C-alpha cells in the first residue's frame, strides 16, 4: 500500500495535475509538493505527489514495473493496482 510510482506532470492547474507514467495518464493532486512545475517528475502515491524524483530513478522504477506487468506473469502482486497510484 505504501508504494509510490514515478510519473511526469503533463498538465498543471493549481494543485490539480495530470500525471503520466509509461503512457498511462491519470489525474493527481500536487497539494503535498507545492514546489512542482509542469514537466517535473514526481512520486505519486494514492493520487497525490509526495516528492520529486530524478529522471534516472524514475526510469529504473518504470523498468521494474514493466517486468512485473509482463503478460506471462499473471501472478497478482503488491503492484497490481498500479499505475493508478498504488491506492491500496
Amino acid at each position, binding site marked *: *500500500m*505504501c*508504494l*509510490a510510482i514515478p510519473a511526469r506532470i503533463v498538465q498543471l492547474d493549481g494543485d490539480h495535475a495530470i500525471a503520466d507514467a509509461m503512457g498511462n495518464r491519470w489525474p*493527481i*493532486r500536487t*497539494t*503535498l*509538493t*507545492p514546489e512542482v512545475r509542469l514537466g517535473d517528475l514526481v*512520486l505519486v*502515491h*494514492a*493520487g*497525490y505527489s*509526495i*516528492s*520529486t*524524483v*530524478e529522471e*534516472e*530513478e524514475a526510469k*529504473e*522504477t518504470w523498468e*521494474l514495473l514493466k517486468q*512485473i506487468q509482463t503478460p506471462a506473469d499473471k*501472478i*497478482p*502482486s*503488491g*503492484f*497490481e*493496482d498500479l499505475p*493508478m*497510484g498504488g*491506492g*491500496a
Partner: protein
Amino acid sequence: MTLDLQTAFARMNEYCGKIGRPIQVMEVCGTHTVSIFRGGIRTLLPTAFKLLSGPGCPVCVTDQSYIDVVLKLVQRPDILIATYGDMIRVPGSAGSLETLGIRSVQVVVSSDDAVQLARKNPKKIVVFLAVGFETTAPATAVAIAEAERLELDNFCILCGHKLVVPAMNALLGGMNHRIDAFLCPGHVSVIIGSDAYRPVVERFGVPCVVAGFEPLQILSGLAEICQQLADKRPRVASVYQAVVTPQGNRTAQNLLTQYFEPYDGLWRGLGRISMGSLRLRSEFREYDAMARFGIEEVPGKEMPGCRCGQVLCGLIDPPECAMFAKVCNPDTPIGPCMVSSEGACSAWYKYGHSRSNPS
C-alpha cells in the same frame, strides 16, 4: 548508494562472516516483502541471514474492531462507504464487505475521489475508510481540508491511520523479539524523513536503513545493515537518497499535525501501541465517523487459530501457522495477512513456501 549485484552479495557474505552469528533483519514494509519475494532475494541470502516480515501492511494491522465498526455503519441506509480496494476483503467477526455482498461500498483510488463522491451524493453521508501509514495519511488530511473548503457536511472519515516508528519501538520493546536491524520503508520515509528513525537507533542500538523497492536497492540496504552489524556501529542510513531526505516532506508533516494527533490505538496482533495511531483533533470532530455516529471502539476477537499477530511481529514465518495453505489461501483467506496482496502470508503463499529461507 546502490551497489551492483555481485558487490552486494560479496559484502553481505563478508560481513556476515565477521558477525559470526545468525542475524535477523525485519523488513517493516509490505511492499518490501513482496519485492523481496519477487526478486528471489530470499533464496540468495547468506545462510546466517534471515529476513522477517514486519507489520508494514496497513490492511494487515487494521484491527478487527475497525472492520466491525464498518459493518455496523453499512447497516445505515444513508451511508456510503468509500475505500481503497484491499479493505473490502478483510474479514471482521461476521465476514468482509465483499463476502457479505454489501452494496453501499465504492472503491476509490484516492481520498480526493471520496470527497467527490460526497459532492455527487448529497443525500448520502460518505464515510471514507482512512487507513494506511504516513504515506497515505497526508492525503486524508488534504481531503478534510477540501471538505472544509467546500463546506461539505456529508463527508467524514473512519480514521485507521497508523505510524511506523511507534510500531518499531513496540516490537523492540517486546520481551521476545528477535530483531537485529530494520530495513525501513522507502515511501513512508519520503514523508517522515530518515531522521525519524534516529530515536530507534539511539534507544535500542539497532541499525535502521532506508531502501527503495528495486531489488538492487533492497540488497544494497541489506549489505549496509550487515556492515553496521559487523562494525557494531548502528546508525540511520539511506540507500534511497534520490527521494528520501533526512527531514522528509514538511508540507505533508504539517498537514498531519494540523489535522491529527497520535494516540494509543489498536493494532491487529500487536495490541495497543503507545502513540501508534492517528485520530482527528477534536476541532475536526464533525469529520470523525466514530464521533458523528456515537460509536465506541470495542476490541475485536481474533480469528481462532489464525496466527497473524505472531506473523506481524516476526515471531513465526507464515508456514508455521497450521492453517497456512491448507485452509487459508488468497482465495479463501482466514486472516488479514492472507487477504492483502502485501501481507506476509499472501507473499509466502504466492512465491515463498517452496523456497523458504534456511533458518
